[in-house]
């Protein structure tokens, strides 16, 4: 007799909202593009795009609200108690909310950008929503199957998004490389999962945790391959090489989206995996992560020094930031992990902000990505220049900005855990990072403008993203924990980061 499973739909509410949203957007695109008017205006591409963009933002906002509710509610919900595949706890709720927010901001950033680049297709929003669904799925998962599925659901749309500007060779190449290397990494990850399944007899985190035998080479190979799969997604050295190529080639708005969301989701999933599934392997995994973190910090920062393309530079910087985040993992303490969560949120704001500036400068279907094109920007676009400086300063980790608080929490946790040498390496490399981050302000403020004229007007969505990110970067830099903003109420982000991890440590 088949017993219908007991399903807690609330546990998948954010996922479902976004998934429905994606389909609604697809449908809407079909209908709207056939319609003659949209909301009373002539149905130009731009209007269709805007309407779809706002609709998808609405869905994301709804998902954000749902995820936020789950976080505030604080209970741990399992979707299917008889065969738990998903577990919406405070951690996954928080990360889902962050991912939703990041996607929302990315869409806000994209609406006018797509028009500017003349790739204004409604599928774009659907794909972003689908990818967001995948990320939420991945961070909510407590089973290798759902982790993998989430990962793929996240990746496949992003492969497409990277190649979204399909008339451009660079965009093609970006998509191709991301796809090729991504599916290769997926295969490695899968093989690892297969081996883990083979040793543990199950794919859920709990089973793996129970069945993982540190002396069994097959299990170890499996763990290693799974780590590799995630190391690829978080773009840590030596699985980082796709990052600069893909970030550079993809349309800027897509790069913005993938650089923050993928990283957040992948780190969150890795965190869950490490805490919930691989707990017994801590020592040896810590060493592996130590090396990966050190390499990431060094290679990311050193390579960024010679870059002449802002997106590529930010790509290397994201590799370096992956290294810093991994330092929190190496610390391995609750403080370290909560620092990682905090860092991820902060990173979202500052990196999105930086890309938002790049996007806001895109002109006549061309990305404003050569570093020289920033020359003299302070003269022509003082506001954007100031904001870019703020984001660069924050990425560098100068006190007073969120970037510093993030680095501070990570390093504090690392030092408290006795991870001195990695910390020292990290701080030395952030000195190197000063050089390349501050090159951009140097060009903007200290050089004469070049021939390239930047776009002179700013779209509402871009302004929104810039303001949100700038406020967040400043606010979190000064009040990472105890600030409160009128209307939003108290924002004890550090507390949230810490509390979100409690369910993971409890189990």
């Amino acid at each position, binding site marked *: 007799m088949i017993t219908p499973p007991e399903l807690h739909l609330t546990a998948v509410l954010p996922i479902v909202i976004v998934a429905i949203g994606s389909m609604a957007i697809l449908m809407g695109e079909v209908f709207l593009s056939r319609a003659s008017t949209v909301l009373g205006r002539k149905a130009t591409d731009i209007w269709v795009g805007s309407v779809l963009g706002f609709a998808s933002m609405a869905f994301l906002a709804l998902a954000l609200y749902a995820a936020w509710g789950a976080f505030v509610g604080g209970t741990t919900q399992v979707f299917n108690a008889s065969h738990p595949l998903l577990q919406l706890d405070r951690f996954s709720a928080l990360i889902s909310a962050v991912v939703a927010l990041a996607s929302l901001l990315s869409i806000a950033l994209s609406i006018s950008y797509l028009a500017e680049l003349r790739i204004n297709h409604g599928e774009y929003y659907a794909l972003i929503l689908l990818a967001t669904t995948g990320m939420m799925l991945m961070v909510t998962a407590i089973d290798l199957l759902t982790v993998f599925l989430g990962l793929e659901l996240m990746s496949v749309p992003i492969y497409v998004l990277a190649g979204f500007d399909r008339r451009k060779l660079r965009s093609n190449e970006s*998509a191709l490389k991301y796809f090729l290397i991504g599916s290769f990494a997926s295969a490695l990850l899968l*093989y690892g999962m297969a081996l883990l399944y083979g040793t543990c*007899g199950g794919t859920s985190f709990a089973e793996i945790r129970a069945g993982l035998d540190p002396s069994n080479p097959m299990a170890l190979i499996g763990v290693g391959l799974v780590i590799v799969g995630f190391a690829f997604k978080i773009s840590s050295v030596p699985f980082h090489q796709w990052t600069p190529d893909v970030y550079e080639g993809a349309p800027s708005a897509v790069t913005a989206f993938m650089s923050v969301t993928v990283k957040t989701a992948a780190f969150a999933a890795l965190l869950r995996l490490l805490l919930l599934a691989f707990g017994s392997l801590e020592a040896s995994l810590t060493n592996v992560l130590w090396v990966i973190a050190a390499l990431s910090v060094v290679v990311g920062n050193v390579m960024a020094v010679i870059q002449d393309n802002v997106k590529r530079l930010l790509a290397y910087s994201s590799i370096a930031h992956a290294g810093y985040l991994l330092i929190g993992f190496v610390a391995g303490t609750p403080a370290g992990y909560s620092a990682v969560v905090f860092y991820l949120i902060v990173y979202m704001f500052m990196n999105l902000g930086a890309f938002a500036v790049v996007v806001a400068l895109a002109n006549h279907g061309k990305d404003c990505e050569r570093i020289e094109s920033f020359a003299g920007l302070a003269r022509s676009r003082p506001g954007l220049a100031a904001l870019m400086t703020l984001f660069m300063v924050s990425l560098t980790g100068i006190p007073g900005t969120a970037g510093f608080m993030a680095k501070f929490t990570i390093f504090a946790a690392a030092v408290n855990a006795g991870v001195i040498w990695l910390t020292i390496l990290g701080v030395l490399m952030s000195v190197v990072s000063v050089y390349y981050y501050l090159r951009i302000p140097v060009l903007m403020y200290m050089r004469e403008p070049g021939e390239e004229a930047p776009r002179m007007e700013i779209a509402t969505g871009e302004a929104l993203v810039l303001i949100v990110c700038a406020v967040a970067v400043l606010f979190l830099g000064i009040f990472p924990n105890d600030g409160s903003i009128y209307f939003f109420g108290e924002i004890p982000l550090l507390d949230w980061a810490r509390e979100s991890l409690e369910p993971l440590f409890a189990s």
Partner: protein
Amino acid sequence: MLPLDHVIGLSAILFVLGVIGAVTRRNLIVILMSIELMLNAVNLAFVGFNRAWPGSSAAPQLDGQVFVLVVICVAAAEVAVGLGIVIAMFRNRDSVNIEEVSLLKW
């Protein structure tokens, strides 16, 4: 009863062949095929391992097989997208040689 070690061994052989194919072949389509080969190897491993963890008849454990189903779908999706990228690429570049795809570097 099939010897599990040989099944897994076969899977490993196919996986490594897939890896070698992906790393050495220059035709993009063949590389895609190699990746498919890797996924197939994984599937074989899953099926083989599911044979080792079948559960009881009352409560059969089909994790591995479900996984395989998912992987097949994923493979299909990847191939679709991958070939789409290859086509888009071919239109612009008129080649499927992966070594010509190096505009973005350094």
